[in-house]
């Protein structure tokens, strides 16, 4: 609701504003939606001047349409597909994480979401030499585990150190801290400051349900509104700066025998473009296993329901090592 004020656009003078206000026109929306001839008569202002102001205000506050062909050209050059570090997971995601999209990993506690996130961070930092922003809201991030993953993938100590330096971890424990960390990221990217923070292509958020759960229930719609604001912020970040956003979420069931579905309710379920469900393999419960099954729950490119097997064990998220429980699980 932008209020009209002098200097908002050329041609909008103080006296004009006073005359408009006297006739009940206070905001940009009021001005644009009213009949200009009518106003010209009532306020005794020049019709031509009003039309000119309307044109400038619309150009300033409305969105501009782009042509499909231009957008396609732009996307071809700016979209990248980031490897997750696990070839079978890449296959599930149609070759990897696409920039410009929000991908969700959901699963019960202990299903391996944090491990997969660490694997992704390691892969992007080591393999692509790109910077990673890791927002940790559960305290599940352990640098030693990350180092272990990097050690398994790269021999050179120098390389491992550089890879570690390219991953920035921010601990956020409520929604406002998360929103402000994202705002900081946005400012940094808009200014294109070539500082210690190089090109950033991925943001990993583990987990998003931890900061949103406290908001839901109670004053119902306010919590949902903040959740949708977060969703909007993530999507605009992804689209505007060509970043891949990975979020983790809990999984719930409607009844004790129903299928697993993502937590945070219906409104959140529309937000990610791709959703992967992580589950432990059915088999044996006696010994802790590092085997997991990932299935595709939502995708705009592949049929849903396809499954792959993952091993989140020791270093490489693919290496089939005997059951050694991973640290920090």
């Amino acid at each position, binding site marked *: 609701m932008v209020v009209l004020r002098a200097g908002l656009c050329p041609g909008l003078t103080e006296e004009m504003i006073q005359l408009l206000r006297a006739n009940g026109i206070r905001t940009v929306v009021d001005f644009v939606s009213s009949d200009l001839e009518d106003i010209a008569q009532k306020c005794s202002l020049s019709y031509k001047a009003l039309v000119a102001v309307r044109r400038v205000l619309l150009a300033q506050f409305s969105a501009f*349409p*782009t042509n*499909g*062909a231009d957008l*396609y050209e732009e996307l071809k050059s700016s979209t990248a597909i980031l490897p997750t570090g696990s070839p079978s997971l890449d296959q599930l995601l149609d070759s990897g994480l696409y920039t410009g999209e929000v991908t969700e990993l959901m699963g019960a506690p202990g299903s391996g979401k944090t491990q997969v996130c660490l694997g992704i961070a390691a892969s992007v930092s080591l393999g692509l030499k790109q910077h990673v922003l890791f927002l940790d809201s559960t305290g599940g991030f352990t640098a030693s585990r990350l180092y272990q993953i990097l050690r398994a993938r790269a021999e050179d100590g120098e390389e491992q150190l550089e890879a570690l330096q390219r991953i920035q971890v921010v601990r956020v424990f409520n929604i406002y801290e998360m929103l402000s960390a994202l705002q900081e990221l946005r400012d940094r990217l808009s200014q294109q400051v070539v500082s210690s923070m190089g090109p950033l292509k991925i943001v990993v958020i583990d987990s998003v349900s931890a900061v949103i759960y406290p908001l839901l229930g109670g004053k119902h*719609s306010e919590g949902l509104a903040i959740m949708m604001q977060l969703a909007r912020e993530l999507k605009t970040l992804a689209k505007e700066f060509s970043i891949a956003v990975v979020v983790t979420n809990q999984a719930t069931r409607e009844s004790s025998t129903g299928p697993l579905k993502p937590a945070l309710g*219906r409104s959140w*379920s529309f937000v990610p473009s791709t959703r992967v469900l992580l589950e432990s393999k059915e088999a044996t419960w006696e010994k802790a296993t590092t085997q997991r099954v990932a299935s595709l729950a939502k995708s*705009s490119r592949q049929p849903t329901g396809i499954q792959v097997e993952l091993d989140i064990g020791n270093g490489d998220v693919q290496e089939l090592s005997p059951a050694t429980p991973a640290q920090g699980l």
Partner: protein
Amino acid sequence: MADAFRRAESGTQLLARLEGRSSLKNLEPYLFAEEASPVHGDVIEFHGPEGTGKTEMLYHLIARCIIPKSSGGLEVEVMFIDTDYHFDMLRLVTILENRLAQRTEEMIKQCLGRLFLVNCNTSTQLLLTLYSLENMFCTHPSLCLLILDSISAFYWIDRSNGGESLNLQEMNLKKCANFLEKLVREHHLALFATTQTLMQKSTNSAESFFPLKLQHETDTDYRPYLCKSWQQMVTHRIFFSKQCNSGNSKGFTVISCHLKRNHVVKCSFSVAECGVQF
């Protein structure tokens, strides 16, 4: 001088009207209960929970529109308003590649040249964008399809901003709906809008939307939550749902209702690489 200006403006509109908008009658016969649908002035709402194929259906309609007549399309222009950054251009290009006779870059760019995209971040911006698009409809006579995905994207945010007053909460959407109705009527467009199933169906039968005869036929999860102005301007409501049977056909179902005449038609489709297939 003001008079002459005004005359010129309505002259453009008149010209656009005289040239006529192309017919959309053969857009997608499976989706509509009547023979010759949609006609200009129709407002069609796609409603359904997530993952039920609404956006895929939109890609299908866009492809049908922008593909040239030589390949079986309608060769008209489409305006797509995206309110939640959902539009996946690469998916649309995959669909086009599968449907065109010649899959050259040139051909694809030519088709995409008939598509216009706008992104809106708030309901206020949506309203102002609609005002500024009015000009575009005047100058592009072959622009006859307007798609809005989705109109319910700002629901929670508007509700929270409006505080306690229901009027304030719905004000922006009401203005958008009124202006959309004016645009569709004056420029002879067809409007497709998607709404998301954000609310659970109410168990109170007094609130039921359909007359009793249809209620057990259509077990749709529909509970109206958008403002009355929007609900009253919709002429067709199409419900999307996913078939959860364990059979091999992972299909989707559409139930299409013509609201004024109470005609209901049901059919199913599947989604392949080339898009929606009935």
